């Protein structure tokens, strides 16, 4: 293939004048991480709650939880992005909607992106949490009851601490998914890493340098996440308790 590589482009000034292209991409990484981390906090909070509620004997709560999961699992992420960005402000009262539409960039894209990604991911975490709880032997719950714990107490002290340890490996891959999925926010104008790689390609015409640089940055980020989560798994390990080895699952 006759493509002339020109790696020095990474150190040339980007047209916005904020610094080199490499710096421009690294700022993109910062936005990717800022989006992914905020969404992750939201997703863990909602996901843990919904996932736990779906294992309780309260029929209507379980049904509501199932509905929540089905809605956000069966609509593509990019469509959900458009709903949060284009549709939600129109459905709110006019003044509030107008105010939202006037939020200056990048926050006007950042907030809907975090909400969208957080809720999208919370559904997947809810599924993991429920599976983790259901994988515990029934005896654990019964033992809690036998010891005189209330339902809440046995969740708090017996079930959840074990369930979360079991689902740490799948949660690691969910965290990597949220980093990857944050790239979809470029469709609503958030200049995160992938968005900036595309912008760099448009400014400099150095297509493959831009995408290779972004790819390498994603790979390094993944490596850091994997190592950090491995350390965390090691730190919270309880002898004798086996973590989920990950039954084959569909994903992206």
């Amino acid at each position, binding site marked *: *293939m*006759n*493509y002339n590589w020109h790696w020095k482009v990474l150190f040339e000034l980007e047209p916005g004048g904020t610094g080199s292209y490499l710096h421009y991409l690294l700022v993109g990484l910062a936005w990717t991480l800022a989006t992914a981390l905020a969404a992750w906090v939201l997703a863990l909070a909602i996901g843990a709650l919904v996932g736990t509620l779906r294992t309780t004997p309260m029929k209507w709560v379980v049904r509501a939880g199932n509905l929540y999961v*089905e*809605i956000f*699992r*069966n*609509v*593509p*992420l*990019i*469509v*959900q992005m*458009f*709903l949060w960005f*284009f*549709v939600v402000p*129109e*459905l709110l009262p006019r003044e509030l909607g107008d105010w939202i539409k006037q939020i200056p960039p990048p926050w006007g894209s950042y907030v809907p992106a975090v909400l969208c990604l957080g809720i999208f991911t919370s559904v997947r975490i809810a599924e993991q949490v429920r599976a983790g709880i259901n994988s515990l032997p029934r005896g654990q719950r019964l033992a809690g009851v036998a010891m005189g714990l209330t339902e809440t107490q046995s969740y708090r002290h017996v079930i959840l601490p074990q369930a979360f340890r079991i689902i740490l490996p799948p949660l690691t891959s969910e965290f*990597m998914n949220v980093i*990857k*999925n*944050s*790239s*979809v926010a*470029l*469709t609503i104008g958030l200049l995160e890493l*992938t968005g900036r*790689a*595309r912008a760099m*390609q448009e400014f400099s015409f150095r*297509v*493959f340098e831009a*995408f290779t640089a*972004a*790819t390498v940055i*994603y*790979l390094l980020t*993944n490596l850091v996440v994997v190592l950090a989560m491995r350390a965390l798994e090691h730190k919270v390990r309880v002898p004798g308790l086996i973590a989920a080895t990950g*039954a*084959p*699952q*569909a*994903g*992206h």
Partner: protein
Amino acid sequence: MDSGFDFDVIQRSWGYLFREGMTFTVTLTLLAMAGGIVFGTLLAMMRLSSVKPVSIAAGAYVNLMRSIPLVLVIFWFFFLVPYIGAWAIGAREPIKVGAFWSAAITFTMFEAAYYCEIMRAGIQSIPRGQAWSGYALGLDYWQTMAQIVLPQAFRNMLPVLLTQTIILFQDTSLVYVISATDFLGAAAKVANRDYRLVEMYTFVAVVYFVVSYGLSALVKRLQERVAIIK
């Protein structure tokens, strides 16, 4: 925007949305599913190969694809495929490739990495004795795979393969980033032309929900049937 939900815009653009948009989406999904399962199975066999360079190469490909965002992969292939095409037919200049074929190649290659992991688990779920008895009967590697291991692996993994295909169906909407006219792309064009974003995007969400939910329910029923037979 004016108050009131304008259903009319959906009715007016019905033909464009489904005959053009949905046809693109469904064709792309089916092509990428077929290609992805074929390549994914080959990759899985490579990953499980005892020849080290082969398993390392396949592992590297799968991990690379699974580590970067699909949007970035779509951009990569959108620009890369014209070069690969030129190289394949010996042309000097990058050739022109339409959005559809670019997307078809992208999704086939990307999903192959995900189907690979499913098929690998499927192959590993078959007891080793099955392959050994194949060899003992005088079958070679390809015969053993094609006639003994893969049919069982495929059957065990069918629900997961189908679930992955539902995800693929949803993911094809990301071809929006290369301005292809898939179902979402068609709706976005109408939405921007008539300034009917609320109606169009809500409608798109409902259609995707109905299709994905319906297919998931079918997969769940299939899963129960397979589970009983096992």
